[in-house]
Structures are given as C-alpha cells and as structure tokens.
C-alpha cells in the first residue's frame, strides 16, 4: 500500500483572503512576528497494488487533471509506503 500526501496551495501572487484573515487572528491572539499565512489543502490518497514509480506517475496525473487547478494553484506530493 502506498499513501500519497498531496499539498495544494494557491500560487504565489494569488491573493489569499482566508490566509490573511487567519494571520490577523493570530496577531489578535498576541503571536508576534507572523509575516504571512497561506491556507491550502492537504489530501491523502491511498493506492493499492501499484509500484512506487507507478504511484508517482498516477498521483502526478491526478494532480494535473483534478486535485489542483493550474490557473491558480501549485501542488506537490510525498509518497509513503506501508
């Protein structure tokens, strides 16, 4: 079994009002020095019966086709076995 941990984030330069709001709340709570907060998505995709190499290929395609929108988002993923 292979678990892919997929991280999807807004591209640099795309305004993230949600992240900005969280940053403001942290400041209100007294956390000093928080320069920026970006809110993204974290997905865990579990694959069965595929090699690590095949899993990497498939997750790459999943990200390109569905999990991320290339107009506004970047993605990266890590694979974990077992």
């Amino acid at each position, binding site marked *: 079994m292979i678990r892919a941990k997929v991280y999807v984030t*807004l591209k640099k330069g795309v305004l993230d009002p949600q992240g900005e709001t969280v940053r403001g709340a942290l400041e209100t709570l007294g956390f000093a020095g928080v320069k920026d907060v970006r809110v993204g998505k974290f997905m865990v995709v579990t694959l069965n019966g595929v090699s690590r190499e095949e899993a990497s290929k498939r997750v790459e395609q999943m990200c390109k086709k569905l999990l991320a929108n290339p107009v*506004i988002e970047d993605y990266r993923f890590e694979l974990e076995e077992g």
Partner: protein
Amino acid sequence: MRFGIIVFPGSNCELDCQWVVERVLGQQADLIWHKEKDLKDYDCLILPGGFAHGDYLRTGAIARFSPVMKAVERHAEDGGLILGICNGFQVLCEAGLLPGALLRNTSLAFICRHVHVRVENTATPFTTACRPGQVLRVPINHNEGRYYVDPETLRQLNEKGQVILRYATTGGEITDGANPNGSLDNIAGVCNEGRNVLGLMPHPERAAEALLGSTSGLLLFESIVRSGRTASPMSR
C-alpha cells in the same frame, strides 16, 4: 429556439432560468440531467447557478467531469451557444471552455445583492440587444466570484474584446468601490475567443421581470434569441 439547461446534483437556479426562457421569452427550455450524453437538439445550453456536486474540492471541479460535459464541449466546438451563470461560469472555467478561475471573494463574505455591470462588447450573440457601455442592474449571489487570470491571458482578453461585463458604478464608471468581490480589472463576465461561450457571475435570470426590481438581465436572453443562432448541422 431550443434551450437546454444542464442540471448537476446541487444546481439550484435551473427553474429560474427555465421560467425566463419559457414564460418570459416564449421559447422552449428543457432541463437536462448531468448524466445525459446527447445534446444535439439544442441551440443554446445554459449552465445554471448553484453548488454542483457540492462545490467539493473547488467550485466546478467535479462537475467539469460530469458525463454531460463531453457533449457540452462538442457543442462549444461546433459553435453552439453556451451561457454559464455563476456556478455555471465556474464550471466552464474549470472545463477550460473559458479562461481564468473564480476565487474566494476578498470581502470575506458571501455576497447577495444587486450590483451594476457595464457592457463592454455588444458584438457577441449574448449582448446585441444592449447599447455599448450600457449599465445593467443585476443581482450577484456568490462566495467565490473573484475572477482571476494570469497577466498575459488578461492582456489577450482585453485585446480581443473577450471581457463582456465589468462591475461598475450606476453611472458606468469602473472603480474599486464598484467591485464587490476583488475581481481582476472588475471583470464580471468573459467569453471565449469564438464568442459563443459566455460566463458571468451575476444572475440575469433574476433580473428579467419588473416584479423582481430589474429587467436589464433580460437583454442577454433577448440577444440570444435575436441571434437566431441554431445548432450547427455538424452537431446534429
């Protein structure tokens, strides 16, 4: 003219659209479930507002792969008319039938109110009934309406006259104050290069009868009927 209104699980403006097309315009409008694969009989398709597939992952991201979308793409390629309203606009962007994407409003709020939009191009099948620069009063009703596109594509959109509507003041001025959601360049609606696919965040179907406080949304529907554009023989 024969209109087809695509209904996804979670769509919720399909009956408003059907009402306007049938009762106000006197044209035929069928509701089409998203599993349908054949759309050959329709002249104009409408992708209505709502929350298709719960808007899970991203607005329109799952709907874009609904079975009906292959036929919607063919309709677009054949030059058939497609109107995407609100969530329908988001679906068309995800499907790549329109450039750009719709992001969360900068105002941190779901916005539901009437706004003013200026008609930027009347040479499209959707806007011939409008005067150049005419200001329409139409409601918006969304959480993710902030239009975004990369700078190079934006330049092309402006150059090719693909920006159809911009948020404006009642007098037609394009100002930051008139921009409800932080959209790039106040963009409220764009069309494709072929000008047969239009997406817009405002709801023209909710501004098509005096009883609802504005009739300026009707101009878009009247333009479509006036265009008389029927599905190309190739698609039949």
